[in-house]
């Protein structure tokens, strides 16, 4: 049985300066209650690794709005003018990574790989500062593994043990990030009995999960 904690208790685990991987794509598949709890707790100087920073007031955008983020590693910030404003003002450092390379970098971190060789980004600003390697006459960029202190994950179901599945396009970076962080905190839409998810349905095995965020009790 996995420990079930409140969003506030989860946020209390995260120190200032932590490196966070946060699932989601434009806020879809982002653990919103965990984000709200982080904002409430006022955790500062965070590094966020995520596909994007959504929009102001949505998902990771709330962390940006609150000025809690010092660095972002993402594929896209164009939908969030506040991220761009803070970047231009020098308040946030932004590292932009092609989306497929970002996915592989996160996966590499979780899979014990040093990184991957990709053709993506060659001849563009994305190659700056990166090693190149030629294999059989083809040149690749070396995209290096990323790891994090915490992964904040949104799942469709968690069973009592912490096995997870995901819904439709809310899957995105979540299962990759669940492999790549020292501590994995999951906000499922539902917590279900063991056996509800069959072995072939489980996308993230329970051994990867540290904490499940429960629902608030409903009264009346």
């Amino acid at each position: 049985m996995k420990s079930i904690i409140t969003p506030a208790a989860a946020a209390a685990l995260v120190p200032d300066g932590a490196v966070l991987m946060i699932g989601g794509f434009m806020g879809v598949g982002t653990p919103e209650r965990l984000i709200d709890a982080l904002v409430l707790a006022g955790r500062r100087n965070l590094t966020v690794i995520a596909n994007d920073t959504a929009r102001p007031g949505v998902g990771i955008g709330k962390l940006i709005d609150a000025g809690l983020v010092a660095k972002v590693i993402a594929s896209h910030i164009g939908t969030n003018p506040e991220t761009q404003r803070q970047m231009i003002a020098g308040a946030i450092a932004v590292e932009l990574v092609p989306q497929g390379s970002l996915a592989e970098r996160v996966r590499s971190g979780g899979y014990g790989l040093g990184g991957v060789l990709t053709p993506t980004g060659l001849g563009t600003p994305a190659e700056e500062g990166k090693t190149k390697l030629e294999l059989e006459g083809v040149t690749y960029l070396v995209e290096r593994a990323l790891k994090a202190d915490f992964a904040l994950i949104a799942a469709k179901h968690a069973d009592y043990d912490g096995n997870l599945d995901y819904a439709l396009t809310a899957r995105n970076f979540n299962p990759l990030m669940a492999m790549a962080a020292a501590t994995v905190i999951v906000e499922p839409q539902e917590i279900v009995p063991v056996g509800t998810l069959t072995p072939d349905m489980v996308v993230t095995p329970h051994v990867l999960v540290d904490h499940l965020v429960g629902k608030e009790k409903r009264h009346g």
Partner: protein
Amino acid sequence: MDDKSLIARRVALELKDGMLANLGIGLPTMVAGYLPAGVTVSFQSENGIIGMCPVPADGLVNADLTDAGGSPIGALPGASAFDSAFSFGLIRGGHLDVTVLGGLEVDEAGHLANWMVPGKMVPGMGGAMDLVTGARRVIVAMTHTAKGAAKIVPCCTLPLTALRRVDLVVTELAVIEPTAEGLVLREVAPGVSIAQVIAATSARLIVPEHVPEMVL
């Protein structure tokens, strides 16, 4: 027909039955609305689905089902969902038959610049670099000029999206095919002359003896 509809309609003719296609946000998304009768194409959204379709009716919005822009979509029977690494495995691995993307500049080498304007707009490349690098066929769907300035240029002044030569450029004036020899004018839009296309293009165009009018 307005310019964007014309472009979308012409691009749609490039999609063949059974293809897997990925349409960029904006104008390229319109292409799905102009598929010829009898042509069934699977659409991928790079945030993790094959089999996307418009939301079929009010009330059928699902918070866990959106396109890469975060807008609600639907899914057809036979759809499949997957994570971001898999999604870009499809794109980078050559499993995507065609991608249609917008453009800021295309040059004589067939290089595309479509993701940033230094000092002005730094939104991030999102999936564009993987799409242009990995798709079997890259079609650029864009207006021929921007505020009167040519977008088809001798050499891109904006940062490139990839080193790969794109396969086709469709504008409201023309269809242009980048080749090893340069940019070949393949078609002109209805009522547009070759001279008009050349005048709106700062790149050198190779003009074959016969340049047909777009059939739409």
